[in-house]
C-alpha cells in the first residue's frame, strides 16, 4: 500500500471511504428503521402509563445511572436495576429508598432523595415496566 508503484491509489482509497461510509450508513438507517417499528411490541409500549413516564423522569433527575446500571448500562458501583422489581418486589424498593443512607461505616452509601409516596410509586412503576422489556433474557440470573 505504501509503495508508490502499487496499483492502489489515493483516489481509490478515498472512493472506498466515501462509498463504504454512505453504503453502511444507509444500511444502518434501514435496519434502525425496522428496529423502530418493532420497539413497541418488544417493549410492551402500551403499558407505558403516565406513572411510568413520571417514574422515568424521577430516575433521570436523581441521576440513578451515576451509580447503578439499567439493562446493563450505567455505572458499576451499585446493583443492576433492570430486574430489581423481580428480584426484590415493589414494597422492598420503596422501603429501601426511604431508609437510605444506611450510615454503616465504610460501606457504599446511597443518598436520601426525599421522594414523596407518589414519586416512589411512579419510580416502581417505571422499574416494573422496564423489567418486562424483551431484552433477550439478560441478565443471566436474577442477581443482575
Amino acid at each position, binding site marked *: 500500500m505504501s509503495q508508490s508503484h502499487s496499483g492502489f491509489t489515493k483516489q481509490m*482509497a478515498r472512493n472506498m471511504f466515501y462509498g463504504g461510509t454512505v453504503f453502511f450508513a444507509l444500511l444502518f438507517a434501514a435496519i434502525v428503521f425496522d428496529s423502530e417499528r418493532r420497539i413497541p411490541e418488544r*417493549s410492551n409500549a402500551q403499558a407505558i402509563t403516565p406513572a411510568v413516564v413520571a417514574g422515568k423522569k424521577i430516575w433521570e433527575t436523581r441521576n*440513578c445511572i451515576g451509580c447503578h446500571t439499567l439493562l*446493563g448500562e450505567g455505572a458499576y458501583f451499585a446493583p443492576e436495576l433492570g430486574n430489581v422489581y423481580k428480584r426484590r418486589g415493589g414494597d422492598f424498593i420503596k422501603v429501601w429508598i426511604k431508609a437510605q443512607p444506611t450510615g454503616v*461505616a*465504610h460501606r*457504599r452509601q446511597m*443518598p436520601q432523595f426525599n421522594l414523596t409516596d407518589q414519586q416512589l410509586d411512579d419510580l416502581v412503576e417505571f422499574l416494573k415496566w422496564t423489567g418486562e422489556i424483551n431484552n433477550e433474557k*439478560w441478565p443471566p440470573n436474577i442477581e443482575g
Partner: protein
Amino acid sequence: MHISTLKYQSQSVSKLYFIAAMALFAGQIIFGITLGLQYVVGDLFFPYIPFNVARMVHTNLLIVWLLFGFMGAAYYMVPEEAETELHSPLLAKVLFWIFLVAGALTIVGYLTVPYAKLAELTGNDLLQTMGREFLEQPLPTKVGIVIVALGFLYNISMTVLKGRKTAISLVLLMGLWGLALMFLFSFVNPHNLVRDKMYWWFVVHLWVEGVWELILGALLAYVLVKTTGVDREVIDKWLYVIIAFALMTGILGTGHHFYFIGLPGYWHWIGSIFSALEPIPFFMMTVFAFNMVQRRRREHPNQAAVLWAVGTAVLGFLGAGLWGFIHTLSAVNYYTHGSQITAAHGHLAFYGAYVLVVITLISYAMPTLRGRIANSKKAQAAEMWSFWIMTIGMATMVLALTGAGILQVWLQRMPLTNAMGFMATQDQLTIFYWVRIAGGVIFLLGQFLFFASFFIGGDPVTEDAGGKGAKSGVLPARSLNPA
C-alpha cells in the same frame, strides 16, 4: 508577539485550548482517584460528593477536555494545512471563554446543587435531556455546546474553504462536523426507555467508534507528516483506508450495544460480526505509525512527539481493538455486559486512542507555540518518561479491572443457581480495586511529570542535531542510511 516558529500567527489561539485541556485533564484524574477510593471506602466524602456526582464530573471533564483538545488541534492544524490565516482568531478566543465558563459553571453546578434541583433550575422540564450517562449536562450547557460547536465549525470551515484543501483537513472537518451532528441526538429522549437507549448510542457510539476516529486519524496523520517527512500521498492513502475501515466496521458495530436493551435479536449477528472487525482499522493504524516512522526522511528534533504518536497507535489498538474484542461477541457479552470488564475497556480505549492523540498534538505543537521547534533534550526526556509512567499506571488499572471483571462474572453472572449478589461480589473484588487505585496514583504521577516537562528549560534541540537525534530516535530508521 511574532512567533517565528509558526507559519501562521493565528495558529497561536490553540495555546489557550491546550492549556485549558490539560488543566481539566488534571481535574479528571483527581476525581477518578476519588472514585477509585469510593469503591473500597464506600462512604468517603459522603454525603458531600456522592459517587454519582464524582463520576459525572470525571466523565464530563474527560469529554470537555478532549473537545478542547480537538478544537485546539484544529485551530493549530487548519491554518497550516490550508496555508492561510484562520478566518477569525477573535471568534476562536471568544468561543474559548464561553466554552470554558459554561463548562466550569456546569461542574460547579454538579458539585454544589443537588442534581434534581439543578434540573429544575436549568429548565429540564422544557426539554428533558438530563440524567442519562455522559449526557448529564443541563439544557443550557447542551445548547451552549451546540452554539460553540457551530461557531467553531464556521471558523474552521471558512478557513479551509479559502485555502488549500488537503486530505488531512477534509477528514478532520468531516470528523468535527460529524461530532456536532451526532451530538444533536442528545436532545432526543423518548419516554420509551428502549428508544431512548437506542438514540443515546447514536451520540456515544457513533462518536467514539465513529466520527471521532476520523479526528484521531487526521491528527495522527498530521503529526506523522510533520515529524517523518514521508510523502503526503502515502500518508493520505493510509488515512483514507484506515477511516474507511473504521466507518465500514464501526457504523454497524453499533449493534454490539443493542444486544440486551430491548432491540430485535438480529443485532446479535450484526453487532458481533461488525464489531469483531472493528480492531482492523486500529491494527492498521499501528502498522501505519511504525511504517511511517521507519521510513522517515528526516530526524525531527521533537522525538517526544513521535513517541506519543506511536504510543497512540499501539495503545489505541490494545484498548479500543483488543480489549473491545474480548467482550464484543454477543455470547461473551451476555456475561460481561455492564461488568468491570466494560470499565477496563473504557479506560484503556479512551486513554489509548483519544487522550494520547490529543497529547501527541500538544507535544508537537506546544514547543512551536512557544517559539522553538522542539524542547530541550532534558524536557523531552521528562516527557518520554511521563508517557511510560502514565501508560504503566493505566496498564495496572486496566489489568486490575480486568481481573475484577473476570471474578465478578464468575461469581455473579455464570452460576445458574445461587449466584452471588452484587454487593457480596464487590466485597470479593477489593484487592483488585486497591491495585486499581495504585495504578491511578502512578498515572497521576506520570501526569505531574508531563506537566512539569513544560517548565524544564535548556537549549532546544534543533534540526542540525539531527545526526545525533537519529541515534536517540524512537525507532530505527529504514531509509536514513542507504547501504
